[in-house]
């Protein structure tokens, strides 16, 4: 009986494992203003365990992700990005971290945003 439970539970885990996508795609919004932000966001994403590919677009603020659902989830990835100083759609970066990023990357500052719009970077 124990064996049967074990087999069933293994099968069940296997089945749920199968249902989880190893190459799940997602697009989330991450705030940032420039190429330096792009590097930081992509690096923070890829350094989060389980993320295989991360491409952020400066203009659209969209972060295209491919990640292993078995190893991570969107909340974890977003936390990692927020820890690097960038607000994501669900998690805002802590002020202490935000204050440490380069002055040119201060995406919460309207002045900085405007500077970039005028073709600063």
């Amino acid at each position, binding site marked *: 009986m124990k064996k049967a439970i074990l087999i069933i539970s293994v099968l069940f885990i296997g089945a749920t494992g199968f249902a989880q996508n190893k190459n799940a795609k997602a697009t989330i919004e991450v705030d940032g203003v420039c190429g330096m932000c792009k590097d930081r966001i992509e690096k923070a994403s890829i350094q989060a365990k389980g993320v295989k*590919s991360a491409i952020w677009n400066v203009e659209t603020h969209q972060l295209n992700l491919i990640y292993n659902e078995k190893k991570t989830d969107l909340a974890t990835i977003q936390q990692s990005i927020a820890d690097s100083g960038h607000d994501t759609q669900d998690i805002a970066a802590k002020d202490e971290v935000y204050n440490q990023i380069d002055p040119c990357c201060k995406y919460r500052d309207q002045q900085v945003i405007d500077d970039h719009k005028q073709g600063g970077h």
Partner: protein
Amino acid sequence: MKNYIFIAFLFPLSVFSQEKVTGKITDNINNKEVSLAGANVYWLNTQVGTVTDFDGNFEIAYKPEYKKMVISFVGYKTDTISVNSPKRITHSLTSTANLDEVTVTARQKATSRSFIQATNVLNVSSEELLKAACCNLAESFETNPSIDVNFSDAISGTRQIKMLGLTSPYILITTENVPSIRGASQAYGLSFIPGTWVESIQITKGAGSVTNGFESIAGQINAELQKPTLDDKLFVNAYGAGNGRFELNTHLNTKVTDRWSTGLYIHGNMRDTEFDKNDDSFLDAPLMQQVNVMNRWQYTDTENGYVGFFNVRFLNDEKQTGQIGFDEKKDRGTTNAWGSEINTQRFDLSGKFGFVNPDIPWRTGGLQLAYSHHNQESFFGLNDYNIEHNSLYANFLYNSIISDSRHKIKTGVSATYDGYEELVLTENFSRIENSVGAFFEYNFDNLGDLNFTAGIRGDIHNRLGAFITPRFHLRYTPWEKSAFRISAGRGKRSANIFTENQQLFATSRDLKILGNGGEIYGLNPEIAWNYGASYMQGFNLFGRRGDVTFDFYRTDFKNQIVVDWENPSEINFYNLDGESFSNNYQLEFNYNPFTHFDVRLAYKYYDVETTYLSGKKQNPLTPNHRFFANASFQTHQTQKGGNWKFDATFNYLGEQRFSGSENYLNTIGLSEFSPSVSTLNAQITKVFSSNFEIYVGGENITNVKQPNPIVGSDTPFGTTFDTTYVYGPIFGSSYYAGLRYRIN
């Protein structure tokens, strides 16, 4: 985003009263609609967005202040489109999946060197290639300081290229990453690729990648050909020069079906005017004619992630040279007059097939297959030289990542077959060479200041044995706008001593192979290590961009087939016994002093030495000092796309050592070193519109000429006859004009 959708549900009335944009997002598969589910659609600079449903449909609130809609999806190019009314739209996205190793689709601006790549690669765009209008791949390096172009001898008109002080056999030359100019086509192969067929060139200094084989030593040159889907529907280039040369290039490209495109590329060139301006009774440039036809087929299926290229090419090239009045029918095989003919027929068949996993964009693979038949029949005075070369090449490549996109891998297997039937004078040197190998390359990129590529391949070759080829490249950026690179790698090859040194047949020298029972002509394979370091710094000076690069490369031969010209009555081939190396220092400076004006300056110092039987010596006809300057300017484009373009290139070559003892050189009127030479080329292009342009140019404007380039020209069957003492231009200044017409 979800929050906003939620909010929208809470206020159904406001949604109802709002105007809406509805639409459908599809995958762009040759105008065939395939719905894209899960694509993001939102208004630029707002938080208003939605996601397409399973049929690719979406619905999004519209307000007049929303102007631009952004559509994005992983694995596709993000598009921003203008929408200024509440309507229904249908939009297709383009897959970003491309196969770097199989096709390079990006079009580069002029010449550029990357700050990011691990390898020291110089990208030369088609725009750069137009700066010197003439005419084939060998001549397209005139505006590039990394490649040196010389005449190999005084009669055949062949331009020989050198990189890091070493001749072209040590450079792996590929077309679309398939090794193409090797074996029997080594000497003249570069002139078999018309310049207009070339879309871009990538020059890699130092050890290349293991994915393309083990043969590259000094570097790699890859030429990307025009792609039927990107090239003009019709392109015509006509060229005529005062030296009697005419060329005509025609490209016809058309789309056959949704997935198939084809291109027909026709090239013809001829020179039928005899010139003997230096009165040595020999033609200054050969009479020649070439017909070169290629048909390309391109297959693109983005839906399933397949791309392919299939090429068929036929070439007939005839060169005749020697004394004025030489008549092949009457004079061949006699000493009435000295003449030479080099006739080549070539047939090429190649295919490439690549796949991308549409769901997993980093998983790509490619298969390259190539077959060529090359037949050269030639005679040089009383010396006959015939070579037939059948070649097969297969390479399979697979790309993926390990855990994430910072760790990329490439792996694959390859096989080659080369069958040679070679008749040298009366001796037969026919042989077969074949190899199978496997490779693995790992690339690490920390997405910041460091990336490196480490590759290794193992091959089993019927004549070179079983061996390992390691290659390593690293790029480190210590501070902003800089790139520090190092590379190291090993190369191994079998020297095709006769075909690589065909100029020897146009001399009175005796051929001697001092073999030791080795596998190739009784000689051993050539083995060399190449080490390089390069530092590049970008800067802003007076608000203008520039960059400066310093390179050092060293090639160290473990074995080399020494080509010894030191004894004037002989040419000896033997295995290296002692040191042979090439040290190359290059300082390059690029600056943009004002808009549309670019300046490139380069200074090079070469120290190339080989141990001959007679001792260690500097390699003959390899100058220590070289200086290069290029300036280009273009006027602002008019609305029709017209403008003027000006380009000038200056080349200085320091003195070059002639082979042979000082005593002997005196008797033939030469001193130990050649004088230094400076040449100037310039071109002006008038672009009338994007469809039509004309150009005029001059080569060697200052009319520099080597006096008496042929030693013993008065007694061509005598003991001193030698056409290889060439250090500078034979033909004086020459002017040309041409036109380019295209329909897009």
